[in-house]
């Protein structure tokens, strides 16, 4: 069957179940409730004055009822410095556990060592917001029989509520924890800031293990994860490679191209009609995206505009703007550098939030719904403004859905920033390879060669034209770029589906086909 964006979606996939085709960004939400029932979180019991402390991760796992077909979950706040996911799967593999469903909030390059476990049947299913590197390549080539499910950060919470993801065991890394499992990422030698994605796992997993390299006296505050959900606590020498978890402060790019795109994007925001006192703002940590914050900061100072809040993945640059008094508040679901942890710990206007509050569509209002302006990147965008952030030009899975579709659906102004081509590969396509965020959520595309406004928003286009910005029809820009680069030969795929891309409401927005061996 076709979904409303014209993508062919199977009705049923073995190992996944029935699929519901995407029908529009707000179609399911407009009912006011979710049809799927919410499953109950497990009830647990615990006698007074017992000890949760285990001598090793292995012992904790042994006590957690490991079994074939189990679902195990992780959070990705340690980014490319995480070592616990690989350690845990190695332990399970050595125990002979098979048919594991891996439900990590995201997967990074540091997780490449688990590739053999995908090949040998230790791991047979994956739910994640992102997959990259060798794992992404292997997934695209069809290493798993059951397609991986790519979800958004908000969509992941919904999947756990509805029982699509039923977590048997979650392993939560903490840079500080006490003997009862009260835990945080906001201090300690491996501090990584917000632990927002793990909160739902702690609430719903049948077994919860907190792993820390910094056992502190009871109680560990703040209680980012609280003891009433935690079964076991493990103290280890290291939870990850500190140099890759959070380093110093994030620098603004020096790349003239990224700065040029960022400057144009800031001009777009300034003249969009949404740049006014009290506006809420989100930017990513990537090159051009973060650089937009630099120019917005200057414009806010010049025009004496004070915003409401910043949201999402938080960099030291956001913290500087908070400290400058340019924004009232930061809502932090994931922190990108060491300075952010200090701010999160010490500034009460810098608030740690769980993924549910950040982006889950099925509650009484996530914070993404209150965004005025969000700046997002893209691997590809097409003439209908559909955005691909998951598959690369060579067909590999090499990106993350993350909060892309969540924030885009909530914002009054969603700005996509990207170069019009990268290394001879055009980024603006007639049709993106994989849709992650629907074009209806994207208001404007900013490239170095022109600004394209989604024709569904004529008022925005009028505002930007009035300001004298270089507005081009996206079809014209697509042709212009093809002329520069030449038209790339199309990739070749088989009929086998290796991935499904879930929209935040649980419907299927696209599927990924297996790449043909070359």
């Amino acid at each position: 069957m076709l979904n409303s964006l014209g993508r062919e979606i199977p009705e049923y996939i073995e190992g996944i179940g029935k699929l519901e085709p995407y029908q529009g960004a707000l179609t399911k939400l407009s009912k006011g409730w979710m049809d799927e029932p919410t499953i109950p979180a497990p009830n647990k019991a615990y006698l007074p004055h017992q000890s949760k402390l285990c001598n090793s991760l292995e012992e904790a796992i042994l006590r957690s009822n490991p079994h074939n077909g189990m679902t195990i979950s992780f959070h990705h706040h340690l980014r490319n410095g995480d070592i616990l996911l690989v350690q845990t799967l190695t332990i399970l593999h050595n125990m002979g556990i098979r048919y594991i469903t891996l439900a990590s909030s995201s997967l990074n390059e540091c997780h490449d060592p688990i590739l053999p476990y995908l090949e040998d049947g230790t791991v047979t299913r994956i739910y994640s917001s992102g997959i990259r590197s060798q794992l992404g390549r292997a997934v695209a080539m069809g290493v798993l029989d059951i397609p991986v499910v790519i979800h958004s950060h908000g969509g992941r919470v919904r999947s756990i509520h509805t029982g699509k993801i039923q977590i048997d065991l979650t392993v939560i890394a903490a840079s500080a924890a006490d003997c009862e499992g009260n835990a945080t990422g906001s201090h300690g030698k491996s501090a990584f800031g917000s632990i927002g994605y793990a909160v739902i796992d702690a609430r719903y997993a049948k077994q919860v293990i907190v792993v820390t390299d910094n056992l502190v006296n009871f109680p560990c505050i703040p209680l980012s994860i609280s003891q009433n959900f935690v079964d076991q606590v493990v103290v280890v020498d290291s939870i990850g490679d500190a140099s890759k978890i959070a380093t110093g402060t994030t620098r603004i790019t020096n790349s003239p191209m990224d700065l040029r795109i960022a400057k144009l994007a800031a001009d777009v925001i300034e003249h969009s009609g949404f740049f006014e006192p009290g506006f809420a703002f989100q930017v990513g940590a990537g090159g051009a995206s973060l650089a937009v914050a630099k120019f917005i900061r200057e414009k806010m100072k010049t025009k004496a505009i004070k915003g409401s809040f910043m949201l999402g993945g938080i960099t030291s640059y956001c913290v500087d703007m908070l400290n400058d008094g340019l924004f009232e508040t930061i809502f932090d679901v994931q922190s990108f550098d060491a300075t952010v942890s200090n701010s999160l710990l010490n500034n009460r206007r810098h608030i740690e939030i769980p993924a549910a509050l950040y982006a889950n569509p099925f509650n009484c209002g996530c914070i993404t719904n209150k965004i005025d302006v969000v700046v997002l990147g893209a691997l590809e965008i097409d003439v209908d403004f559909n955005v691909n952030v998951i598959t690369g030009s060579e067909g590999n899975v090499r990106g993350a859905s993350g909060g892309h579709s969540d924030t885009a659906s909530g914002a009054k102004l969603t700005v996509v920033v990207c170069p019009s081509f990268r290394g001879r590969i055009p980024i603006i396509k007639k049709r993106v390879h994989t849709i992650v965020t629907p074009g209806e959520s994207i208001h404007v595309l900013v490239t170095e060669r022109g600004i394209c406004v989604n024709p569904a928003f004529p008022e925005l286009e009028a505002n930007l034209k009035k300001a004298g910005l270089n507005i081009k029809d996206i079809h014209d820009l697509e042709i212009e770029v093809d002329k520069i680069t030449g038209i790339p030969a199309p990739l070749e795929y088989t009929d086998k589906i290796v991935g499904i891309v879930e929209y935040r409401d649980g419907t299927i927005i696209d599927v990924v086909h297996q790449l043909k061996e070359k």
Partner: protein
Amino acid sequence: MKPKIAAQSGTFESSDVIFLIEPRPDNSGRKLEISSTVMQQFGANFNRIIVEMLDQYDMTDIHLIAKDKGALEPTIKARFETAIKRSLDEQEGTLK
């Protein structure tokens, strides 16, 4: 014609391509080794440009190594022309 000397042009930078040309023994034909970061999407186009230019300069008995990092067509052609002329010792207006 065949190359007189080994020659090189271009760089390993992004959006550039590097060509290495070496003479081969008489009547041994062309040996082409082409690699590109965009082989999948533009490999056919790249090969076509190379063969057309080799024909245009009537080059035989040549060993060519090309490493492309996403160069645009005018860049590929400029770098290859430079490499060919250098290999024929026909370059003008430059120090060697």
